C-alpha cells in the first residue's frame, strides 16, 4: 500500500469516526453534571469498608480482580521486553564501557545524591498511605524505580549496578504478583470470593484500616517497582553497551 492510498484510507476512516463520535456526544450527559450512579455506589461501598481513598478501595477491594488482571499484563510485558532486549551472544562479548569517565557536574552529582533518599522515602510513603491519601502501589512503585535511577543521572552507573542486582528485582516483581494472589486465596478460603476483603476494617482514616487494601497496595508497589527497574535496566544496558567505541 503506498503512502497516498494509506492517507486516503485513514482520512475516510478518521472522518467517519469523527462523525460517529460527534453523534455519540449528543447522547452523553453534559460535562460536569451531577448524575454519577457508579460514583454513588462506589463511595458507599468504600465507606462500608472504612477506606478513606475511594480510588484505592476500587482498585484493591471492589475491583481487585481487574487489578490482578492488570498485574498479569504488567508481568507479561516486562518479561517480553526483557526477553527482547537481552543481548545476543555476539553482543555480550563486548566489554561494558566505563561511564564514570563521562563528565558530570559536581552540582548534579550532589543533587542526585541528596534526592535519592528523598525520592525513595516519598515512594515508600506513597505506597504505605495509598488507602488514606492520593497514592498507592502503582504510583509509589514507579516513584521508587525512578528514584533509584537518579544514580544514573548522577553518572554513577557502577553504583547503580551495585544496588541493582537485577535478579533481585526480577524476583521482587514476580513475588509482588504472587503476593497479590495470596490474600485473594485467603478470601476464597474464608468462604467469600476470590480477593474478598477478609481483614478487619479498623478505624476510618487511620493507618491500620481498609482491611486488605494496604496489603494488596504493597504487593502492587513491589511488583510495579521491580518491573520498572528491570525495564529501565534492560534499556540502559542496551543503550550503553558500545558507547565506548565512538
Amino acid at each position: 500500500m503506498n503512502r497516498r492510498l494509506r492517507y486516503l484510507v485513514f482520512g475516510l476512516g478518521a472522518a467517519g469516526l469523527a462523525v460517529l463520535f460527534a453523534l455519540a456526544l449528543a447522547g452523553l450527559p453534559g460535562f460536569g453534571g451531577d448524575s454519577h450512579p457508579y460514583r454513588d455506589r462506589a463511595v458507599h461501598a468504600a465507606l462500608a469498608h472504612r477506606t478513606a481513598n475511594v480510588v484505592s478501595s476500587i482498585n484493591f477491594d471492589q475491583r481487585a480482580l481487574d487489578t490482578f488482571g492488570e498485574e498479569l499484563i504488567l508481568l507479561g510485558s516486562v518479561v517480553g521486553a526483557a526477553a527482547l532486549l537481552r543481548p545476543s551472544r555476539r553482543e555480550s562479548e563486548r566489554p561494558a564501557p566505563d561511564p564514570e569517565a563521562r563528565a558530570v557536574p559536581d552540582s548534579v552529582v550532589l543533587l542526585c545524591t541528596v534526592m535519592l533518599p528523598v525520592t525513595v522515602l516519598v515512594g515508600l510513603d506513597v505506597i504505605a498511605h495509598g488507602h488514606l491519601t492520593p497514592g498507592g502501589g502503582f504510583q509509589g512503585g514507579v516513584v521508587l524505580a525512578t528514584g533509584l535511577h537518579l544514580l544514573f543521572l548522577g553518572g554513577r552507573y557502577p553504583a547503580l549496578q551495585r544496588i541493582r542486582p537485577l535478579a533481585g528485582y526480577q524476583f521482587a516483581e514476580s513475588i509482588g504478583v504472587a503476593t497479590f494472589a495470596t490474600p485473594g486465596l485467603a478470601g476464597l478460603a474464608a468462604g467469600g470470593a476470590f480477593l474478598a476483603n477478609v481483614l478487619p476494617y479498623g478505624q476510618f482514616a487511620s493507618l491500620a484500616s481498609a482491611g486488605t487494601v494496604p496489603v494488596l497496595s504493597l504487593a502492587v508497589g513491589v511488583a510495579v517497582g521491580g518491573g520498572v527497574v528491570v525495564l529501565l535496566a534492560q534499556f540502559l544496558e542496551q543503550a550503553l553497551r558500545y558507547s565506548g567505541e565512538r
Partner: protein
Amino acid sequence: MQVFAYAVGGWLVLVGAAGIVRSHHLVHTVVSLSVAQAGTYVFLLAVGFQWNAVAPVFSTSADTHRAVVDPVVQALTLTDIVVSATVTALLLALAVQIQKRHGTVDPDELRALKG
C-alpha cells in the same frame, strides 16, 4: 463548553492515529500510539467530572457527605497509565529488535509490513 472536554479526548485519539499513519520511524509510531491512548484518559476523566465536587479522597468521617467526582473512572485510568507504560516498553523493545534483524525502523522499508 459542554462537549469541549469530550472533544479533546476524541481529538487526541485522532491526532495519535494520524501520527501512526504518517510515521517514518517505529519509535515515532509507538509515541503516537501513547498520545492516542492519552485521549482515552482525558475522555474517561471528563465523563466522571462534576463541577464544584472534590477529589474522591476523604480525610475524616465528617466530610464523607461532600460531593466527589466519579472515582471509578479514575481507578480505571490510573492502573492503565502504569500498565500501558510497560506495554510501551514492550513495543519499544520490539522496535529495537526490528532494527537488529532488518536494519531499518522505517515502516515503509519493512517488506513484511507491506500490504
